[in-house]
């Protein structure tokens, strides 16, 4: 396979290989117990040697700090020949595994890892049957090659699969697994891997295979854990018969704004144009004219997010707020109280192009609609922070075909990465803005005509055209049908 560099991510729990060599090459074999005791007495840091081997006393340790401490400790230990000699080696798993990963096939071949020439030349012995090594392998897979499809762990003296259980979440695309030529003793070890959607499995030359009285019971036991398996030990299995359960229906496609009628659309767009131009102006006091005397307002934000203090302070989330007095206090009643709170909220700039409007209800007495979109904070500690909102307005008719708000509920949250990237990205209606590309000339002409005919400003006219895909025919239809005079002067600000 390719020589891929998997990067030099430091693995938490990276292993250090400490080798204590006796000074005399043919010297006696150290009594392991004596050595460990001596080290533990001298070492300032508690340590747990993972593996010791023969007379070379190799220790596998989890961190550089402990390794250092052990090296220092070892120098203080003397035998009849003098102080012991210890050397510390990093065991770079990642380079080793990189060589064994084929990115085109998404295969990782760890067959007989202890014979790997690179590792042997470093005098390192990765024993995958040890939890600490297998955990390291799984961690590397999770962080570097989560797209793994084939994994070969044959010939590694594995007797349990506990560490591999994490592969279910770390390597969700894993389909083929080779566990042949290991020491797996009973079928129960496979239970740890239930959840892996294996299609191809090698288990031969494990003691567990001898436990079955015949081939069908072997296949059956394996299939119990991996129902989608179609290949076992290289042999094709008969395809499983499934049930035609209506597993998943689809959800209907999501659409944009729903107004119900063009008259309502213009009524609401005109209203919102005026509302948000005041809302974003820096002084929200004039909004008093938009609200009914007995209007109510409340706001809520997700309890897990930390928005500006002003939102947080007045957030009314009945799921977490149980005290009746506080619940009452946070519902602002009468337009004076409503606008007083609105004026305390941080200054905003709304991205009109992002607005989506759903009209829930429309009767002769009531118009209820939900506006969602994004805005950014233009001052304060969170300046330029982008927020997403969903706001329900309930309004009654006001003089001059206008709207008068009786209920207003605002939900604010931090915008997602996607929302932030697409926010404020619409071309400017006029060529003056240097930051966003200007509209093409034909669009600019359509825009000014539309604005003139509809009575909406350029920004809102652009939004309306944008939402209708700049289809001139639709636009023309819209403004020939409506009676402009009914929509002028929504409310006096």
């Amino acid at each position: 396979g390719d020589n891929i560099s998997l990067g030099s991510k430091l693995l938490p729990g990276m292993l250090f290989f400490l080798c204590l060599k006796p000074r005399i090459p043919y010297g006696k074999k150290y009594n392991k117990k004596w050595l460990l005791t001596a080290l533990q007495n001298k070492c300032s840091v508690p340590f747990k040697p993972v593996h010791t081997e023969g007379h070379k006393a190799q220790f596998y340790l989890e961190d550089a700090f402990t390794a250092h401490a052990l090296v220092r400790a070892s120098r203080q230990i003397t035998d009849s020949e003098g102080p012991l000699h210890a050397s510390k080696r990093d065991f770079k798993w990642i380079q080793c595994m990189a060589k064994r990963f084929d990115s085109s096939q998404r295969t990782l071949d760890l067959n007989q890892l202890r014979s790997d020439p690179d590792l042997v030349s470093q005098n390192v012995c990765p024993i995958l049957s040890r939890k600490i090594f297998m955990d390291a392998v799984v961690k590397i897979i999770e962080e570097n090659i989560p797209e793994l499809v084939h994994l070969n762990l044959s010939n590694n003296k594995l007797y349990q699969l506990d560490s591999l259980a994490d592969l279910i979440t770390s390597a969700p695309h894993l389909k083929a697994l080779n566990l042949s030529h290991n020491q797996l003793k009973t079928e129960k070890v496979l239970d740890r891997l239930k959840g892996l959607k294996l299609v191809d499995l090698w288990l031969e030359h494990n003691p567990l295979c001898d436990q079955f009285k015949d081939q069908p019971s072997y296949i059956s036991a394996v299939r119990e854990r991996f129902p989608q398996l179609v290949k076992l030990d290289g042999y094709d299995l008969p395809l499983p018969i499934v049930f035609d359960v209506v597993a998943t229906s689809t959800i209907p496609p999501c659409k944009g704004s729903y107004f119900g009628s063009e008259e309502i659309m213009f009524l609401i767009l005109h209203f919102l144009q005026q509302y948000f131009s005041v809302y974003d102006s820096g002084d929200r006091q004039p909004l008093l004219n938009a609200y009914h005397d007995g209007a109510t307002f409340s706001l809520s934000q997700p309890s897990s997010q930390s928005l500006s203090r002003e939102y947080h302070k007045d957030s009314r989330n009945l799921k977490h707020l149980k005290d009746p007095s506080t619940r009452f206090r946070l519902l602002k009643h009468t337009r004076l109280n409503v606008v007083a709170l609105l004026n305390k909220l941080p200054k905003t700039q709304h991205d009109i192009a992002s607005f989506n409007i759903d009209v829930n209800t429309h009767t002769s007495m009531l118009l209820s609609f939900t506006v969602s979109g994004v805005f950014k904070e233009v001052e304060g500690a969170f300046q330029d922070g982008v927020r997403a909102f969903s706001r329900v307005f309930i309004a009654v008719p006001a003089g001059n075909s206008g709207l008068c708000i009786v209920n207003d509920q605002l939900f604010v949250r931090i915008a997602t990465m996607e929302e932030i990237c697409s926010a404020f990205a619409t071309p400017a209606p006029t060529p003056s803005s240097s930051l966003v590309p200007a509209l093409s000339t034909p669009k600019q002409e359509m825009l000014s005509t539309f604005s003139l005919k509809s009575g909406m400003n350029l920004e809102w006219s652009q939004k309306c055209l944008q939402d209708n895909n700049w289809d001139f025919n639709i636009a023309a239809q819209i403004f020939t049908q409506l009676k402009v005079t009914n929509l002028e002067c929504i409310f006096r600000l």
Partner: protein
Amino acid sequence: DSTGKGLLDFRSHVDASCRYSEEFTNIYYDCMDKKRRTLTRLYLDKATLVWNGNAVSGQAALGEFFESLPSSEFSVQTLDCQPVHELATQGQTTLLVVTAGQVKFDGHKQRYFNQNFLLTAQASPTSDQPVWKIASDCFRFQDWSS
């Protein structure tokens, strides 16, 4: 004085609204997740639903719509409510309930949603007690455009 009494009424109205909205939310989402076939009973005959921009109205269409949705697992994380001003409702007691949270539809990834309802108190043909019915329902995924 009348203002004092009015405030007391308003306060108890708000208190009651909070309790009703909590009860409603529990019943609605439990029904949505576990007893989907009975969900339309919570709606008025001429109720309207706007679901990610799709408009559905009337019991028959609502029934078909909910039937067509995969099974769901809702988790409501934010709840707020307001009594709706009587000017808008011609005296019929109405409640605005606003929820937000996460939902996992079977076969689809988990998504955040915003939803709001207008509940209206209706006389019941079978009992003395009035019954809350959903007059309108507006639902949207927070990431509906992706």
